[in-house]
């Protein structure tokens, strides 16, 4: 199998700002057009450019850390690079399979038991059926949820479902791993365990892309840094270069 890579060319993402429900109404829109704007003052939909012309090439072996202030476009870039959000303008080509730790709760059903949710998420992730037993064992070991796995998710505390979501996101390695900020991952005992698990999981993937605000995390996980500002990449180089560019803006 060929090596995975990600390439983007002037990829931009514009989010619509939905202020009034009339902007999602066909009839209000039509009435507005036909009366030359006299019917509703909802006006045209405004867009915010969250990511502005990203051109980047990521190859196998790259461990990319994204730094920048809140709202600089890191999370949007991560979603796009993970392949779950297509660019509204420009191009992206993703070669290889990917895994992401972006929103851990996604794909969980409160009415199903822990075990049923494991099967559900295995299916959604496209994990081959032959591996499901192994996944189940791994998640049992890691989450330490014991008998709770046989109970519906609605009986879980927030921390417990988080553990399950995290375990599922880090059980079956793919070519590409995309991680957003590792914060608030459960109780004190869980954090160390989670970091150890991420370290071993990340070492099994060929491309790692993560957003972080910590230099220590950046230095231990990454070999390349991207500094984001205002939806653009302002520095692309070593971890140090990206971090220095970030710090220079006087935000740390």
């Amino acid at each position, binding site marked *: 199998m060929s090596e995975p890579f990600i390439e983007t060319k002037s990829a931009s993402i514009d989010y619509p700002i939905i202020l009034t429900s009339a902007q999602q109404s066909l009839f209000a829109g039509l009435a507005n057009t036909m009366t030359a704007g006299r019917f509703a003052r909802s006006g045209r939909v405004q867009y915010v450019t969250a990511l502005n012309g990203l051109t980047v090439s990521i190859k196998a072996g790259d461990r990319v850390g994204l730094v920048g202030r809140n709202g600089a476009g890191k999370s949007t870039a991560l979603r796009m690079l993970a392949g779950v959000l*297509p*660019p*509204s303008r420009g191009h992206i080509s993703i070669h290889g399979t990917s895994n992401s730790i972006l929103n851990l709760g*996604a*794909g969980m059903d409160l009415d199903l038991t822990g075990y049923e949710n494991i099967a559900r998420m295995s299916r*959604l992730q496209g994990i081959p059926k032959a591996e499901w037993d192994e996944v189940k064992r791994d998640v049992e070991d890691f989450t330490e949820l014991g008998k709770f796995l046989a109970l519906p998710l609605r009986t879980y505390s927030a921390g417990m479902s988080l553990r399950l979501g995290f375990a599922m996101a880090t059980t079956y390695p793919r070519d590409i791993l995309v991680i957003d900020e590792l914060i608030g991952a459960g109780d004190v005992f869980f954090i160390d365990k989670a970091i150890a698990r991420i370290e071993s999981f990340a070492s099994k993937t060929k491309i790692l892309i993560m957003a972080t605000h910590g230099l220590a995390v950046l230095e231990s996980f990454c070999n390349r840094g991207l500094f984001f500002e205002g939806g653009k990449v302002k520095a692309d180089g070593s971890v140090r270069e990206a971090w220095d560019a970030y710090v220079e803006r006087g935000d740390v």
Partner: protein
Amino acid sequence: MASDDLKDIIDGFRKIRTAIWLAGEDMRTRYTRTALGPWWGVLSNVVFVGALGLTFGAIFGQPMQTYLPYIAASMACWTFLNGTVVEAPSSFVRGAGIVTSYPIPLSTMVIRTVADKFALFGHFIAVYAVLAVWLKVPVTILSFLMIFPALLIYAVAGYGFTLGFGMLGARYRDIGPALSSVMMLAFLITPVFWQKVGMRSETHWLIDFNPFYHLIEIGRAPLLGYHASLTSWLVSMSVAVVVLGFGFLIFASMRRKIYYWM
């Protein structure tokens, strides 16, 4: 259609098992925590066919032996068509959580909706099958085999419709409720529980121009042991092709932007 759009559609078919599984889950969720499970659906259909059959059969002066299977077969087809039209606009919105978190194509949600509606079709077919055996509906093998091309046309039309209206419905949220009202009206003006034969001939155009009439005809004729007219087949095929083309067009022009509106 750009290659990305085509890839989404092809991936949807390659992962068809995921779509069908999701449809099965929709079915399980629908009847979750009920003692009868899917039999609730069948039971309510039995009540529906029975009540409608007895009252309207009496009003129209129809013999029960032909009228009950007629209603069951008509309702099976109508349930598929109505369900698809009504649910198409929310298909992508419903699947937003999944497609933005997992490597699953948007078109999976289209197959999911169509598969779910076929399951509802099956609920009525169960009622029909019992009636057909009990009341000895004169089904011939040749006429019955025509159910397969009919279902293919349903699948194509349903897929195209959901592909297009799934997009439009995510962007414009009032399309869903609007279509529901339209279908309410369509149910009354389409010969679903009443029959064309009783109509005066100068009013036939009212239903000859109604695509739902032709679509229902090709589906129920095989179940009742007669052949639908060539016109009905031609109209249904044309509807399927046009709707599929429309679906591809809308999908290709809106796919990239729709993620932000879901």
